[in-house]
């Protein structure tokens, strides 16, 4: 298609390839006159700008020339300087050769002519620049005159050798494109002479035997040094001959297509397979010289085109100069001229100034330009795709940091000349090596569970004090007695303090402060006590114990002196038991110590009153602290303390705050620090959040003050977060709640980053399973499928997009789909679109997306899931529900990820809840509609059917939250007529069920909250008829199936994993799950056993008691140190907690196993081993389960080890 045009009777020259923008130089043509008969000559330069869609070219420079031109050429000479645009050489009429500076013409500067010579005797028709040395120019004129010019010295030309005979005009000179000293000249007689400039002589003459050739054009092959083409102007032989000098006797081939003589040829430098020719038949053709095929034809022009030239810079365009005085620029790529036609029409219209040119008051309508023109300009592009459009190499990125490359030869030695490389390389790109290294370390630590060492390593390598602190705090969270150790980290070492106090007391340094002595002693003593107690018990659980001990100890220590020394009145009041009076008297006399001691004897109210009055009277620096501590106003401390003493406040919390308040108080303190906006204080706030284990707040606080955009910074954060959440998990034995938005965002970011480095599996591990965030779902889907077959046991996550069917919808059943799939494709489609079939099974109204809300609406489900198994137990029903939604769905429900409402895991996990086994079990009530979020957590629907007596008690309304042990259904059950009394429950029988029984979904989030096997009577449940009847009656209406998807855990503890096989086996084999009435009846007895009267220890655990108590006795026999003795006494008491749990069957198999192993070690007197087992048990079980007795076992073994009993 035509791109540009100018009306000039001129010869033309393109600017060299390296010039930008592209110019076209025109010089008035010699031997052509127009109607003006003007003999003036002009040299003009036009810019060829395709950004402008019009056909116009802008004239950028013009210059009157001294004579007209036969040939114009534009070379690179002098192009080294930035302002140069090369030189234009014009071959003139009378042997004049003129050299112009293109730059000077363009810039309209003076002296644009930089050289002129008249060495030639006649018109100079042939010019060519050496492609290798831009200062070398060849020129040819008449009389066989050929000169070689060095533009640096334009006055003296060289000759390539003796003039060829006979003398004739030189039509073309051309330098070889490969060998720089080879030049050829073509002559109208039809021969071409090849010159070797080193030898200074012609080395070969090429001529056709027919003698009818009349050379008009000649061109060297752009790539093959020995080939050239000659074109014949003779109408009798309108051909283009291709010659190879290696066989210079006859042409290799002849391109025949023109009807009349060929006027010019131009060989495309960008693609040797494209050769342009113009001829007297008014056609311009493009050939593929290697095949002889005509690949392009520009339709008949109105006039001969005497010169065609490829544009050196823009390979798909060429210019053509015609005898009728036009220079046109065409593209060989086809296309239409719609837009141009329009602009032309606009131009014509506007030139008539259609804004009322005739003053008639009428605006002329736009000019109508005939449409026909546009149609004829549609020219098909080159038949042969040009080389420049054929992209030989390529690169693209793919998901997972993969890089796809092709077109590259791997080994440079390999010859790839004829055959193209047909390989595509897929590479893994990893850029963040340090990030990956650290991520791998973290991954290993998390997998091995050896987080302590990980923290230690981090502490050692920490560069910043703050970082070190954080890691210290994190480390302590992983350890036993974390509170005590946290205190140490805050700078409060109990041993040190004790020493200080001791030395202070023994030195008798008088206390200058006006504090009563008794009070001083009291404080000291409380410290002492604190140390003792916290040594005895794991610090986390010690705070309440501390208060238990504090008061009785005080009394026993102080009672004796009271009776000895009294004021008369006080003693009288005492004798009469009038404590109030006595206290009043003491307070008056400012005998505070006495007053308080008396108040203790006088009862709680009096004590409190007295304390209050005391604090009101005594205003010292310490009193606020004292009052807060004594009156347990921790919140006051947190809210009012000077932020600079946050450490002290935290220390107080660590020492005193009850477990359930602790978290909240720490967070409050953290929030206060954070709200200051000060970076240092925010860092301290992070420490508070670590202490409280509040991951989300930690992240929020962190991101405020630290950038997390770089991979390593993100890694910094994630390391801490993962360690902290893991430590909390270990502490509570359950997965943390679903991450909040801030954390989820970072984790997703982190996972994406891992994915981008190719760590797909690791990335998947980090993605919070429970999150419903669309981005996370999408990433999970992508990660899953990106791993292809590598995720063997997992089921695909739901497809997080709404599917759109493209093409005409064909009805195909899923079975047919799979059946008809060829092998390769089937393998692929199978796992990739598991959800497709299932969507078809959904009701039409359901969106084609597993939309979250619908899954969690329990209402529509019961009928559906219950009908097929009306007598079946709930777990089965819930399994049915799952398969209903995902017909090819997972056997392991935890992979139905990400759909859990946060509430599902929330309540059970909140740290402030005392986590008694009973509370941990949602039990019966949970299955009622009143508590849908909890229903998924544990064997919910089994209960209704199992509790034959007193059904009325189980109306949903009467059931408070299952979190409250007192309100749990258990009391009812235990008082039921059938009774739960007789035989001690056989534990082993229950072992298999506690987790597997309720159905997979339930146990997953609460592995440690295993169902306590209650001490119930098996007999009471052996009547199948009663049971069956009840179930049939009650189940269908009563229960709401659990949400099929339950809170998953981010990293699954080992314990629940073991359950899957058995569970899936159950489901696959079609057996009723344990909860089903027929076999799994034991399931139903598993109700919390809080108030059952004390029974015998189960026989198999009797050994534990014997061993532990035996050890206490042995120790007591040897121990002399009162402190130790006290510990041992305490031990006996605390072991009761253990026995209690054993009776209740409230301990998980793992713990029981651990206990037996510990007992075994104790029997073997291998306390070291015992302690190891102890650590294992503690780290793998839930805090609530073991907190009552595990610490004392440790103390006991430690003592035993020391005493060497």
């Amino acid at each position: 298609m035509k791109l540009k045009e100018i009306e000039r009777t001129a010869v033309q020259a393109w600017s060299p390839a390296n010039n930008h923008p592209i110019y076209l130089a025109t010089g008035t043509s010699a031997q052509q006159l127009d109607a003006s008969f003007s003999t003036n000559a002009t040299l003009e330069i036009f810019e060829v700008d395709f950004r402008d869609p019009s056909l116009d070219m802008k004239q950028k420079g013009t210059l009157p020339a001294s004579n007209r031109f036969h040939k114009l050429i534009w070379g690179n000479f002098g192009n080294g300087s930035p302002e140069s645009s090369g030189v234009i050489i014009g071959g003139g009429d009378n042997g004049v050769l003129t050299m112009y500076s293109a730059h000077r013409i363009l810039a309209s500067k003076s002296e644009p002519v930089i050289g002129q010579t008249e060495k030639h005797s006649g018109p100079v028709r042939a010019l060519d620049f050496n492609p290798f040395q831009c200062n070398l120019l060849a020129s040819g004129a008449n009389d066989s005159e050929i000169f070689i010019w060095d533009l640096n010295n334009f006055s003296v030309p060289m000759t390539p050798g003796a003039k060829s005979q006979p003398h004739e005009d030189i039509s073309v000179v051309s330098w070889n494109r490969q060998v720089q000293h080879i030049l050829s000249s073509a002559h109208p007689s039809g021969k071409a002479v090849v010159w070797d400039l080193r030898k200074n002589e012609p080395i070969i003459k090429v001529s056709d035997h027919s003698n009818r050739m009349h050379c008009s054009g000649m061109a060297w092959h752009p790539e093959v040094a020995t080939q050239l083409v000659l074109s014949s102007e003779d109408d009798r032989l309108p051909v283009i001959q291709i010659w190879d000098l290696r066989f210079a006797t006859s042409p290799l081939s002849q391109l025949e297509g023109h009807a009349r003589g060929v006027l010019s040829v131009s060989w495309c430098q960008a693609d040797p397979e494209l050769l342009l020719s113009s001829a007297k038949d008014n056609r311009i053709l493009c050939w593929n010289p290697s095949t002889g095929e005509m690949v392009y034809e520009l339709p008949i022009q109105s006039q001969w085109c005497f010169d065609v030239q490829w544009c050196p810079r823009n390979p798909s365009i060429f210019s053509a100069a015609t005898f009728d005085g036009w220079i046109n620029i065409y593209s060989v790529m086809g296309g239409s001229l719609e837009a141009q036609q329009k602009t032309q029409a606009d131009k014509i219209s506007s030139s008539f100034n259609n804004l009322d040119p005739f003053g008639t008051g009428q605006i002329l309508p736009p000019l109508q330009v005939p449409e026909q023109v546009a149609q004829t300009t549609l020219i098909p592009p080159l038949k042969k795709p040009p080389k420049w459009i054929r992209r030989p190499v390529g690169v693209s990125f793919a998901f997972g940091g993969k890089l796809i490359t092709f077109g590259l030869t791997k080994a440079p030695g390999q010859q790839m000349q004829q055959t193209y490389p047909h390989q595509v390389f897929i590479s893994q790109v990893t850029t963040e090596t340090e990030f990956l290294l650290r991520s791998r370390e973290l991954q290993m630590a998390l997998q091995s569970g050896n987080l302590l060492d990980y923290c230690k390593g981090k502490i050692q390598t920490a560069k910043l004090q703050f970082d070190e602190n954080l890691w210290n705090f994190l480390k302590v969270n992983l350890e036993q007695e974390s509170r005590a150790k946290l205190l140490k980290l805050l700078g409060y070492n109990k041993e040190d303090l004790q020493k200080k106090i001791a030395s202070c007391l023994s030195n008798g340094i008088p206390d200058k402060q006006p504090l009563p002595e008794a009070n001083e002693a009291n404080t000291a003593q409380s410290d002492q006590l604190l140390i003792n107690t916290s040594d005895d018990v794991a610090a986390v659980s010690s705070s309440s114990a501390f208060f238990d001990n504090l008061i009785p100890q005080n009394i026993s220590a102080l009672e004796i002196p009271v009776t000895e020394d009294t004021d008369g009145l006080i003693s009288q009041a005492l004798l009469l038991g009038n404590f109030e009076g006595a206290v009043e008297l003491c307070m008056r006399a400012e005998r505070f110590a006495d007053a308080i001691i008396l108040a203790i004897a006088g009862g709680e109210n009096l004590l409190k009153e007295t304390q209050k009055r005391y604090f009101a009277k005594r205003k010292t620096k310490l009193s606020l602290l004292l009052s807060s501590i004594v009156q347990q106003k921790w919140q006051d401390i947190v809210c009012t303390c000077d932020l600079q003493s946050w450490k002290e406040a935290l220390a107080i919390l660590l020492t005193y705050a009850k477990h359930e308040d602790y978290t909240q108080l720490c967070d409050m303190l953290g929030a206060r620090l954070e709200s200051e906006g000060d970076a240092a204080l925010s860092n301290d706030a992070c420490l508070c959040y670590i202490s409280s284990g509040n991951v989300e707040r930690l992240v929020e606080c962190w991101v405020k003050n630290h950038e997390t955009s770089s991979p390593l910074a993100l890694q910094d954060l994630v390391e801490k977060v993962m360690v902290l959440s893991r430590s909390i998990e270990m502490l509570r034995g359950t997965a943390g709640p679903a991450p909040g938005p801030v954390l989820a965002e970072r984790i997703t970011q982190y996972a994406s980053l891992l994915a981008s480095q190719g760590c797909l599996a690791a990335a998947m591990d980090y993605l919070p399973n429970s999150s419903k965030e669309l981005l996370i779902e999408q990433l999970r889907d992508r990660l899953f499928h990106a791993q292809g077959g590598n995720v063997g046991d997992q089921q695909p996550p739901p497809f997080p997009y709404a599917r759109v069917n493209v093409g005409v919808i064909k009805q195909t059943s899923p079975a047919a789909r799979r059946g008809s799939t060829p092998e390769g494709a089937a393998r692929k489609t199978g796992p990739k679109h598991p959800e497709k079939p299932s969507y078809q099974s959904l009701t039409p109204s359901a969106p084609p997306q597993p939309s979250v809300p619908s899954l969690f609406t329990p209402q529509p489900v019961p009928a559906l899931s219950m009908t097929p198994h009306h007598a079946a137990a709930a777990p089965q029903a819930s399994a049915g529900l799952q398969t209903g939604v995902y017909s090819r769905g997972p056997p392991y429900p935890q992979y139905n990820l990400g759909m859990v409402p946060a509430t599902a895991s929330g309540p059970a996990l909140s740290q402030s809840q005392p986590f008694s086994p009973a509370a941990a079990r949602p039990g019966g009530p949970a299955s009622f509609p009143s508590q849908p979020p909890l229903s998924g957590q544990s064997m919910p629907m089994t209960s209704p059917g199992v509790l034959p007596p007193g059904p009325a008690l189980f109306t949903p309304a009467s059931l408070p939250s299952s979190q409250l042990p007192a309100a749990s259904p258990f009391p009812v059950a235990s008082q039921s007529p059938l009774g739960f009394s007789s035989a001690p429950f056989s534990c082993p029988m229950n072992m298999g069920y506690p987790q597997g029984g309720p159905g997979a979904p339930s146990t997953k989030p609460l592995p440690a909250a295993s169902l306590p096997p209650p001490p119930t009577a098996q007999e009471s449940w052996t009547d199948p008829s009663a049971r069956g009847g009840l179930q049939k009656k009650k189940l269908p209406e009563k229960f709401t199936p659990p949400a099929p998807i339950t809170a998953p855990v981010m990293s699954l503890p080992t314990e629940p994993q073991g359950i899957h096989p058995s569970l899936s086996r159950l489901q696959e084999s079609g057996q009723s799950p344990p909860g089903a009435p027929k076999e799994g009846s034991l399931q139903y007895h598993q109700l919390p056993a809080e108030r059952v009267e004390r029974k015998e220890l189960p026989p198999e655990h009797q050994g534990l008691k014997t061993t532990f108590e035996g050890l206490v006795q042995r120790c007591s026999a040897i121990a002399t140190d009162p402190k130790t003795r006290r510990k041992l006494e305490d031990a006996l008491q605390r072991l009761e907690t253990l026995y209690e749990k054993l009776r209740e069957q409230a301990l998980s198999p793992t713990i029981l196993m651990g206990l037996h192993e510990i007992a075994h070690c104790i029997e073997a007197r291998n306390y070291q081993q015992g302690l190891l087992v102890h650590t294992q048990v503690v780290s793998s079980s839930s805090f609530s389960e073991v907190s009552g007795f595990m610490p004392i076992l440790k103390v006991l073994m430690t003592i035993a080890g020391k005493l060497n009993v």
Partner: protein
Amino acid sequence: MVSVINTVDTSHKDMIHEAQMDYYGTRLATCSSDRSVKIFDVWNGGQILIADLRGHEGPVWQVAWAHPMYGNILASCSYDRKVIIWKEENGTWEKTYEYTGHDSSVNSVCWAPHDYGLILACGSSDGAISLLSYTGDGQWEVKKISNAHTIGCNAVSWAPAVVPGSLIEQPSGQKPNYIKRFASGGCDNLVKIWKEEDGQWKEEQKLEAHSGWVQDVAWAPSIGLPTSTIASCSQDGRVFIWTCDDASGNSWSPKLLHKFNDVVWHVSWSITANILAVSGGDNKVTLWK
């Protein structure tokens, strides 16, 4: 660090012009001057030929995978002036749509972000850009930008879907008010940015810096920052990175990444938009951070 993990022998009989992985990175589509499009399963270091698609009558320049929510769909464009959309149906690949509205070689195809629906932009040597939108039940609607690039359009690349405000998809078919944009590069040495306004595509920006054909443009994936980034490469060996910080999309500024000594054919962003891969006529692939 780049390590080859898989070498796929495509058995193409002529030059390979494009190799693209699907959304999940497990399937490879290649196309070649031998007029064929091939699809391979490539995970786990293996390769299984899934399809050898014949239908083009000229070299196939590019292939593009649609988002999986539309099924397994691949678009290919060729020198034969055709765009073919292939679809896997019952495990076999078939032509689902053929577009023949261009007058010259179709050099580039690129699917719009999946949020917009199934839209394919096609750039051709006839200078036009076509936008094919799937309108349901096998129907496609065509919009054409004529003379987008004089002499030809070599590349098209969509801007990531950025919604002002919420990212949540409305399931009811109500589409959020996306501002649709794409970039194109052509033989007029320009990079142009097109924006849809009232259903019409308008030239929003003309980015001038290249002094040769723009061979490829790549709009960087969104990483949540307000900055838009485009990479473009050219015959002149230059690779430019264009950035625009303001939301209106009006002030783009170029930065020269590098000047190579040969044609630069291809630029491709990593998924996380932090690495740019550049492949040039010197047979080298370079990665830029």
